Each structure stands twice: as structure tokens, then as C-alpha cells.
């Protein structure tokens, strides 16, 4: 039984990491209706820039992180200016395609700037089992994962407050609802998009640091975006809590499926199991767990 719980908790904690990436998607989708495929590339870019700064200029991590933050904000603003502004009011699929183009561009840029070899990223958090759980329940729980979960929780609380309590948050939601209507009532669309992309850049940085510390900073980091997609489907594209709950469900079920069902069918089912799970779920609730119900009129 303790093995089950170990897998389960490990899954939940890795789900937190998925949720973190999914959060970046939700932010941008919620605030601009853009399904940002480039989020994975942004995570990669952020992590690589941070590592690159510490390695190339021998900066300390505490200096490199704020600098990377600046770079990410600049990147976000540049994306808004160069890519999104000319595409205002285009169909959603066009915007989506543009972010796929963006993915290629950012991936190329990141590797052009910092080289394409894998890097090691060390955060001052150690990846050791917590002794308390070890002694009390005989379960391995990594300290790193728990701290990552806490950071994630903090981030989510902050974002939830931003969306629900502030004026900017209200403007964000208005823009998401209808670009043109928001423009018409005097919401500065460009400014709002700039803010959103900057915040998404920040979330990407946090995700990039945590994932990078876990698995090394390498090109494979861009694939975490693919892990975040089923999380999104499950949780609903427009819901911050949905991203978290979806992340937890996906993380836990994926690990459990790999351990308990995997051996029966030959293993490696982690790649598609979340998708199939999310797909089955969609058949019951087409807008995801917390997604807004889509009302369609003729």
C-alpha cells in the first residue's frame, strides 16, 4: 500500500509541474483568447537564458533570475508588438498558427544564443526525501517536489487574486471575452496583451527553473508543453483552478497507469494515456472540468 501512495504522491507532485506550464496557457487564453502553443518554447527559453547567464557571465543565480525576468518581459512585449498586434481580430486558428510559428522562432533563437548542448541547473533546493514522511509513513517524498508545489500554490493564489480582484484582471477578462468590444469601451488592448504576455513569461520562467532543475535544461523541455495540453483539456482552457486540478489528476493517473496498467500492455503509455483520459472526459463534459460552458447561438 505504501508503494501505491508513493506513486500516487509522486504523480500528484509531478502534476503540479504540469499545472505550472498549463497555467501559462490558461493565462494567455483567458486574457486574449490566444491558444499559445509557444508556452513550451518560452519555458525552454527562460530556463536556457537563466542557465546561460550564470554560465557565460558567471553571474550568481540570484542575479540571473531577475535578469531573465527582464528578458522574458521584453520577449513578451516584443511578441505582442510584432506578432499579435497585426493579427487583432483574426480568427482564433490564425492566432494559434502564429504561436506555432513563434515556437519555432523561439526554439531557434534560444539555441542560437546559448548553444544546443544540455545544461545542468542547480537551484538551492535539494532533491532529497523528506525524513518525516520517511519515518512516519515509510513513503519517499522529495523535498524539491514539495517546495515546487508550494511555489506553484503561491503563484496560483497570486494569479487568482490578480484576475478576480484588480482592475487589470477585469480588463483582462473583458479582452478575453471580445477584443472589439473591449476596445470600444476604452480598454487599452495593447497594454493588456503586453501585461499578459509578460506575466506568462514570468510563469514560464518559474516553470523553466523548476523543470530545468529536475531534468536538466535541454531541448526536451519544450515537450512539457505537450504534457500541459491534456491538463488543459481536462481542466478547461479558461480556468486557473482547472489547470491545477487537471494537473493533479493527470499527474497522478498517469503515474498510476504507467505502474499498474503499463506492464500489461508493454509500457510507455505515459505518452498517450493523459490524452485518452482527457478525451474520454471530454465526452462527458465537452468544456472541461472548470471551463466556461459554451453557449452557441445562430
Amino acid at each position: 500500500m505504501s508503494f501505491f501512495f508513493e506513486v500516487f504522491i509522486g504523480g500528484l507532485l509531478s502534476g503540479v509541474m504540469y499545472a505550472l506550464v498549463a497555467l501559462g496557457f490558461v493565462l494567455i487564453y483567458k486574457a486574449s483568447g490566444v491558444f499559445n502553443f509557444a508556452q513550451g518554447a518560452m519555458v525552454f527559453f527562460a530556463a536556457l537564458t537563466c542557465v546561460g547567464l550564470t554560465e557565460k557571465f558567471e553571474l550568481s543565480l540570484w542575479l540571473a533570475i531577475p535578469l531573465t525576468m527582464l528578458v522574458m518581459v521584453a520577449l513578451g512585449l516584443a511578441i505582442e508588438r510584432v506578432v499579435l498586434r497585426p493579427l487583432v481580430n483574426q480568427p482564433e486558428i490564425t492566432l494559434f498558427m502564429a504561436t506555432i510559428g513563434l515556437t519555432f522562432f523561439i526554439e531557434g533563437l534560444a539555441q542560437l544564443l546559448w548553444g544546443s548542448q544540455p545544461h545542468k541547473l542547480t537551484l538551492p533546493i535539494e532533491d532529497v526525501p523528506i525524513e518525516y514522511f520517511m519515518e512516519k509513513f515509510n513513503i519517499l517524498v522529495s523535498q524539491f517536489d514539495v517546495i515546487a508545489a508550494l511555489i506553484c500554490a503561491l503563484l496560483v493564489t497570486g494569479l487568482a487574486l490578480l484576475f478576480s480582484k484588480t482592475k487589470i484582471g477585469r480588463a483582462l477578462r473583458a479582452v478575453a471575452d471580445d477584443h472589439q468590444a473591449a476596445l470600444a469601451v476604452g480598454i487599452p488592448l495593447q497594454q493588456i496583451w503586453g501585461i499578459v504576455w509578460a506575466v506568462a513569461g514570468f510563469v514560464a520562467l518559474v516553470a523553466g527553473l523548476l523543470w530545468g532543475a529536475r531534468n536538466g535544461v535541454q531541448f526536451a523541455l519544450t515537450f512539457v508543453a505537450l504534457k500541459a495540453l491534456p491538463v488543459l483539456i481536462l481542466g478547461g482552457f479558461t480556468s486557473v483552478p482547472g489547470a491545477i486540478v487537471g494537473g493533479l489528476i493527470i499527474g497522478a493517473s498517469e503515474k498510476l497507469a504507467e505502474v499498474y496498467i503499463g506492464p500489461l500492455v508493454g509500457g510507455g503509455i505515459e505518452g498517450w494515456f493523459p490524452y485518452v483520459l482527457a478525451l474520454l472526459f471530454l465526452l462527458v463534459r465537452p468544456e472541461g472540468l472548470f471551463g466556461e460552458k459554451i453557449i452557441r447561438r445562430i
Partner: protein
Amino acid sequence: MFYREAGQFKTSYQADNQIFPIRQDRIGIAVVLIAAFVAVPGLATDYAFSAIFIPFLIFSLAALGLNILTGYAGQLSLGSAAFMAVGAFASYNFVLRIPGIPVLLAFVLGGLSAAMVGIAFGLPSLRIRGFYLAAATLATQFFVVWCLTKIQWFTNYSSSGVITAQEMVILGMAINTPVKKYLLTLTVVCVMAMLAKNMVRSNVGRSWMAVRDMDVAAEVIGFRLMRTKLLAFAVSSFYCGIAGALYAYAYLGTVEPEAYNLDLSFRILFMIIIGGVGSILGSFLGSAFIILLPIVLNLIAHGLSLPTNVASNLELMVFGALIIFFLIVEPHGLARLWQITKEKLRLWPFPH
């Protein structure tokens, strides 16, 4: 001056309904076809066949398939490479397990298998739409590739998971040189493009477009949503399946399931975006663009003697930037540019 249809009168319904009602178009198509069937085989080198012409045709066919689904029926899909994989591996198994089966029949059966898989994975489209559907089609992508990798029966228990396409023999003639493979591919693509062109002009195509434009409204005025959507999935997957079989048989020769990865799906998606969503011609233009772009970029990088890793990263960047550029400047793709050119040519050289 060159492109003026004044004076071309149609006096029968038949004449009015033909695929290319304008004489200049008919001449143009004839010239292109003659060039493709006669001039290219005579002039091109073996390298050009295997690096440019054959992949161009195969990708055109796959793009055509996706365009039917996305451009005409409005169902965004990121799983086209999976359907290609099904087509390829099914054809391989039909040829392998049914002795003496004609290769073309195996292709058709492979395409039908892909169509069946397409219908199965198209079922969610009845409930979900838009990005949810796009993300859900990724399930197809990962699941199919996983299945083909894990279930060894599909690869005939080859230890590496790689299949080697059997030699194609059609009417006693072995298709084993690039020229023959090119001609085979070209014939298949021409026939299927013709079918597609006719399909989208017929009531099937109209029902797809009605569903694309507003599915609720289409349902209200009497289109059967389920049948229309699933038919779009089936036809699209059939096209992708045939393209996948050709990809294995006429292009690569030996192929592993991983060759049909998400990247390939994305490339096909780019083809229809750059070429023009909802346009048969666009599928060809987009495919040509995506095939030629890396080659041209490579030549430039070679000319500037850049190191290979810098060149490949620059290629990614240019690729991404071009996609964004196209979307901003011409969201309807190259096909729309061609249309604009034609309209301009009607008046040229006069201003009005």
C-alpha cells in the same frame, strides 16, 4: 490581356458546370500536366526526384487530406501524421500477408484502414470543437505511433521496429527507379486531386462548408451533422493514409513509426496554412513552399559557409518568422495571392 474571359460564352449547363470554366485555366492546367508528366521526367535528375518532386507530391496529397478536414469541414486536426502512419503500415501488412495482392489495391485498403481509424478518432468531434478538438486529436497522434511501436505484429516482428517497403510491381512492371516512382506518385496525386476538386464542388463539399461555417445552423437547416463530420474525417484520413503509404513506398523505402511524428503533422498543417486553408490549389502551393524552403535556406547557409548548428537554428527561426509573416500579410495563403494575381491579370495592362 492574357487572362480575359470576355467572349467565352457557355450555352449549356454542362459547359457551365465544368471544373475549369475559363479557357485560360484549362490551357494552364494542360500545360502544367504536360510539364509534370513529360518535361519533368525528361529533364530532372534522380536527386531532384527523390529530394524535391516525390516528397512534394506526397505532402501535397497529405495536405489535401488535412485541407478537406480543416479547410472545408472546419475540424482542426493535429493528427494527420498518425493517419499517414496507419495508411503506410496497413498497406505494408496487406502486401505482406495477402500474397499476390496488387500494390495499388493494398494502398487503397491501407487508405480505408486509415479512414476507419479516422472515423473512430473523429467521434469526439461530435461533442467538442475548436482547440479542445485540436488537443484531442493529439491523442490520435501519440496513441497510433505508440501502438505501431509496441505491437510488433504491425512491423512483422522486425527487431528494430523498422519496416522495409516491398518492391512495387504494377502490371508486371517493377517500380524501382526514381522516375517510375515519381510517375506513379504523380498519377495517384492527380487522380485524387481531381476527385477532391469534384467532391468539394458537390453536395458533399457544400455540406462540409455549411458545417464549417456554422454547425448549429447547418444542423437546423437539415444537414446531418454526424454523417457530415464523420465523412470529412473518413475522407481526410483516406487521403492522408494514401499519402502515408506513398511516403513509405515511393519516398523513404524503409520507415519506422517514429517517422510519422508530431513534427510531420505540424508540417502538414503549415502547408495548408501557408498554401491556403480551404483551397485545393493551396495544398499544392503550401507543400511546394515547405519542401523548397529548407533547401533554399540550406543553400544560402552553405553559401555564407555558416556552421551547421547555427544554420539549423537559423533555419528554425526563419521558418517560424515566415509563418508569422504569412499569417500577418496574407492569412488566406498563397492560393489567395494567386487569385489576386488572376484578378489583376484580367485588367492588365489597362487600369480599369
